[in-house]
């Protein structure tokens, strides 16, 4: 098994010099292509186990990552590919991990839900990651680093009690914790109305945590809002929450989707690639897409050869 090269591929992650619009598009498209490749590999039987793609939610991943600096920390959940890739650019490591290779992110032990890199971790046990993220924020506070700890959770995860225990302590101790709640309106097979009473934003505010709610798949809006919110966490050194109303365009994991077809279809109109893609010059967009496709393609090829 030839070792893989895990240095981020600029065709996928873009370069800092690239115009922001293009770079954001490239990075979202990178996540999309990666996950589409993953789903293909599953169908082919080359991957096993389970996986949770974030197709449709790429703007969250990319928009937040824009504002993090080395020393910040991200704690992600089961739906972590996008968060991981936006944070690290390490497509090769993640694909290797999902293939079960020893040169994967976690040597094949973690698999799709349990990733780890400097400043990044994920765990598939819902909600239980929240206090760990708060503990990391406490470490940052005690060290006086000025860094922050980001916790990504889904709407369904608001069912878990430990989330509230954590919000209380984070607020009480003024921890630099930034909670990003990706509200995609569904929790596995369960629509929000069967899962959640009261308000989403109120659940954070009840603990004295300033909370912003945006209903968008537009990466520029997310980028902008995240910038403000993250700056505010850094400035005040205390927690904030951002609720993003979004939608998952793919299955919950691999093949489980019982949502009304019309609902899903209507949401494709708000596909973040589409929303932001129209802003790009058509030709430039085509170039970016083909670069990303090549990047992912060569990666998949490399792993396919090794399999």
């Amino acid at each position, binding site marked *: 098994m030839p070792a893989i090269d895990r240095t981020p591929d600029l065709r996928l992650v873009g370069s800092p010099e690239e115009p922001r619009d293009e770079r954001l598009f490239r990075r979202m498209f990178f996540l999309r292509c990666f996950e589409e490749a993953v789903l293909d590999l599953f169908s082919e039987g080359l991957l096993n*186990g389970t996986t949770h793609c974030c197709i449709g939610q790429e703007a969250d991943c990319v928009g937040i990552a824009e504002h993090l600096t080395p020393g910040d920390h991200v704690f992600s959940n089961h739906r972590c590919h996008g968060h991981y890739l936006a944070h690290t650019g390490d497509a090769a490591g993640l694909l290797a991990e999902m293939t079960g290779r020893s040169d994967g992110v976690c040597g094949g*032990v973690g698999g799709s839900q349990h990733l780890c890199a400097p400043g990044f971790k994920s765990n598939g046990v819902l909600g239980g990651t929240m206090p760990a993220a708060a503990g990391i924020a406490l470490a940052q506070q005690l060290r006086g680093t000025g860094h922050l700890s980001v916790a990504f959770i889904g709407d*369904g995860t608001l069912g878990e009690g430990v989330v509230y225990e954590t919000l209380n302590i984070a607020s009480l101790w003024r921890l630099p914790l930034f909670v990003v709640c990706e509200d995609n309106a569904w929790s596995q097979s369960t629509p929000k109305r069967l899962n959640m009473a009261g308000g989403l934003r109120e659940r954070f505010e009840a603990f004295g945590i300033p909370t912003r709610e945006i209903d968008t798949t537009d990466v520029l809006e997310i980028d902008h809002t995240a910038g403000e919110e993250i700056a505010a966490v850094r400035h005040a050194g205390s927690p904030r929450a951002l609720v993003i109303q979004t939608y998952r365009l793919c299955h919950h994991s691999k093949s489980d989707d019982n949502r009304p077809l019309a609902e899903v279809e209507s949401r494709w109109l708000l596909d973040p690639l589409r929303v932001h893609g129209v802003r790009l010059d058509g030709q430039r967009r085509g170039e970016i897409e083909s670069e990303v496709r090549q990047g992912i393609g060569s990666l998949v090829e490399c792993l396919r050869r090794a399999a």
Partner: protein
Amino acid sequence: MIFSRALGNTLRALLERDPRVILLGEDIADPYGGAFKVTRGLSTDFPDRVRTTPVSEAAITGIAAGLALEGFRPIVEVMFCDFTTLCFDQVLNHIAKYGAMYDHQVECPVILRTPAGGGRGYGPTHSQSLEKHFLGIPHLRVVAASLYLDPLTVFSQLLSQSEPVLYVEHKLLYPLSMVDAGGDDSPELLFGLDSGECGLPTVTISAVPRRECTVTVFAYGYGAVQAANAAWDLAIEEEIFAEILVPAQIAPVDWGPLERSVAVTRSLVTVEEGTAGWGWGSEVAAQVSRRFFGSLRRPVESVASARDVIPAARHLEQQRIPGAEAIAQAIREAAR
């Protein structure tokens, strides 16, 4: 009929015949019907009594406790056995305590059902067999799903009594066919039923009658299937004859059936998928070593998973979870 279907039919039958039965669980409603589809169809027919819940393992377990205290018979599906950790306080400090703590003025017969075990590449937090941590909680029964005993028989017994239960379903059983011990599914193997003392029987499986067996294998869950296969192969290929005992209830252990077998074979192998150490097999080995002190031919062999997390990568997972060959090897040792 495959096990998951048999179990679904059982739940349906219980709902039909016992108005006290209520099903709670995450994503158990139609059309999804649960992560492993066991409850498919039930919420459509019993919308009030089959309730999909928020992602709140502790609360739904506790709500079941309240229902049970009021005379209902709640059955909770915990989506993965890995998350029973979140129910641990409710089970140990509430459900299992209410009866005795209140001097038996009340009963709290909650049943938790949960899919356990690896073999599907789900990784460290979705593949565990955590029942070992629930064994030995006073007043809690732990029961394991099996292909050899109709779930309706099991659940009927559980509903006829009043102790709380953790019912563990190995995921690899779901797609497998139930084995009709009296039928011709496995014409070669001999099946028996030792009704024991706990209200639930222990199934015996062997290629030859007990008196010709030289080792007893005590196994449950998917391990029982692997052990039965191993017993057959060893009988055919190596003339090693093992009697497999598959208890329905794994804690408290119903010692009678096991003692009757070990009294003949004087050698024992335990098989479980949980990690080694302080597991099911440890208690069994301790007790059998005591009860048969001086008369066992060999020390009790215990087969269990490595003391580590369960990796996602298939080849790594297989190294840590006991496979057919590990079981066969333990039987060979024990038969000597």
